[in-house]
């Protein structure tokens, strides 16, 4: 597989949409683009129907940048805001049914592994807190227990944004939202703790305040999932509409929440740590040799 798989006939390329031409000539495929390059090349996602100032959109944009091989990635989502952007990305996207993301991902990843023995195909679940912690909870947990080799990314805006602002399991205790008219009665679910307990190889909690860290975390999670086992990233991606955050203040809120209760955390299983240290050392060695040459 390569960009040559579907190759427009000579003379025809000029008549294809400019966007398609740009993705081939100056896109993010077959190379690791950097955060510093953002704005200077054709990204996997540009136009989208998300709300103005949406932190989730920024995070998704960075995920596309962080995926280690975009040309071999398939993304799975479910109902929620995130999929409105994900369907606009230049990467195959599966919109399953309500709450079956990790079930579909299990079958998809195993199927791709059967067909592509020499080329790692990365499967990434990207869905909201409702999709993963509530309706999709059983599928998430069992994919972790089964050690399915794909990455689960929770776009945690602590609310059902797409259906108009209802309480989710990831909402903080006491918050007054739709379907929680007197305030949420129980604590925010500890999905990070559950991930650790169920044997997830790499877990990270992150806010979109530091783009380079987001990109590196995504890359790490996908590479570890490829080699070791399930990985989980829980990202604070505020809903400025339902939480009434003024658009210019969205990043201020992200920094405040990060400082208060959503600071960067990562946890490696022993096996994942060993793999990651080894592969990082190999990468550094290769880079040094490259510089010498």
């Amino acid at each position, binding site marked *: 597989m390569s960009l040559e798989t579907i190759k427009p006939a000579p003379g025809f390329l000029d008549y294809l949409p400019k966007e398609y031409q740009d993705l081939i000539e100056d896109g993010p495929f077959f190379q690791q683009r950097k955060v510093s390059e953002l704005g200077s090349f054709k990204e996997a996602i540009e136009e989208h129907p998300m709300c103005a100032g949406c932190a989730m959109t920024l995070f998704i944009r960075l995920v596309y940048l962080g995926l280690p091989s975009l040309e071999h990635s398939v993304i799975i989502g479910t109902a929620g805001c995130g999929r409105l952007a994900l369907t606009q990305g230049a990467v195959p996207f599966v919109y399953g049914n309500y709450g079956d993301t990790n079930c579909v991902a299990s079958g998809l990843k195993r199927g791709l592994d059967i067909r592509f023995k020499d080329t790692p195909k990365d499967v990434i679940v990207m869905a909201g807190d409702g999709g993963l912690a509530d309706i999709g909870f*059983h599928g998430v947990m069992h994919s972790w227990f089964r050690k399915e080799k794909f990455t689960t990314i929770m776009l945690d805006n602590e609310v059902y944004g797409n259906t108009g602002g209802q309480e989710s399991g990831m909402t903080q205790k006491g918050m007054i939202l739709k379907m929680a008219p007197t305030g949420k009665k129980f604590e925010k679910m500890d999905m990070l703790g559950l991930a650790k307990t169920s044997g997830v190889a790499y877990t990270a909690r992150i806010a979109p305040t530091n783009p380079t860290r987001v990109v590196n975390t995504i890359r790490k999670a996908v590479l570890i999932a490829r080699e070791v086992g399930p990985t989980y990233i829980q990202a604070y991606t505020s809903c400025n509409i339902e939480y009434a955050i003024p658009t210019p203040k969205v990043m201020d809120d992200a920094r405040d929440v990060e400082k208060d209760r959503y600071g960067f955390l990562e946890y490696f299983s022993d096996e994942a740590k060993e793999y990651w240290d080894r592969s990082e050392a190999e990468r550094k060695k290769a880079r040094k040799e490259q510089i010498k040459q």
Partner: protein
Amino acid sequence: MKDGVKVEEKLEQKTSKDKAGPQVVSEKAPAPQEELKGAAAQRIVDPDYLILEAPRKREFITGSEAAKEAIRRANVDIAIAYPITPQSETMQQVGYLYAEGYIKDYYRAEEEIGVMGAIAGASRAGVRSLTATAGPGLMRGIEQIASWPGGRLPSVLLIMCRVVNCPLAIQPDNVELSYILNCGGIVLHGENQQDFYDYSLAAFMIGEKPEVTLPVAVAVDGFFVTHARGWVSMPAEDIKLPPRNCYHESVPMMDNENPPIRISRDAPIQKSNFISYQMHASWQQEVFAAQERAKKWINRWLGGIIEVVNPKAKTMIVASGAAVSQSREAVRQAEEMGLDVGLVKIKSLRPFPAQELIEATDHADKIIVPEFNYVGWLAKEVKSTVGRNERVFAGPRVFGGMSMPTELILEAITGSNI
């Protein structure tokens, strides 16, 4: 439950036709070497040869074992299991096939939403996938199952019908098929162990045809078929179907083999504009049109979409599944009583053989529809299909685990107690 004599005769006929010899159409696999055994010894053959022409031997086995033998020869990539009576036996057997190397991947999933979701994922990856369920399990998985046809996801779902709760029971009853009739997929309904073998094998090929590209459910009546033994004639174990050729289907695979691509064939079409309405409408029409296009292959590999016994009889029984076996016996008993009774066996519920049924029953004065469920879903289908539908007698029906004595059918025919 079965009319042993007649079933046997039918099978004998089938074997006697198989004299063509092993005309193996092998594209890649070399001729089997003597040291190879089991899965490693299997050769790929043309589906027509495996399904229609290969010499067969008879074995006296359960329906679950018949399904297992079909799967053994079906070149399945992944099978995903979850236990529920009376289906468990089959997927356990499929597990043994995995252990023996006949299937590449197999696992016990968390429950039916997990199973049906994973099947959707595996089918999108382009591999041949299989699962099975029954009654409440089908109900639990039906949100996913109903989305498979729209996703154009070929796979095979075996359904071993049982009561749907409540009250809790694990007895034979096929009311669950009424729920799956309008999901968009192909639904075949087997009469006995032989059908379970034949339909299950053909199902993979039918669903994967480019002009079809749909999931296929193969239903049988639980216990009567799954747990009872019957004669099943099958070709040797050393031949199997060609693998799934996913790039020959009607939609692209979700394997990202051709970047850059913006593909989301199950994209939410919920914008309020006429293009969205039109897209969703035409997509649904296309799913049901694909069902119709499957008829050609059902006719070819199932030996006709219907079977007609005594085609000129003035009283015709129309049945599917285990009710066909009972109806065959009722036809025989009616003949002894000097009554002129015929039978139409419906092999495929979706696509429904509407025109074939109209033609097969047009001459009849009375149409009897015996069923193993309370709601009479087949009678409703028949009534909405044939002309002059006052001819249709919607019964007899048994349910909740009852068996169907042939006397009930004879009473419906004669209108008096037998």
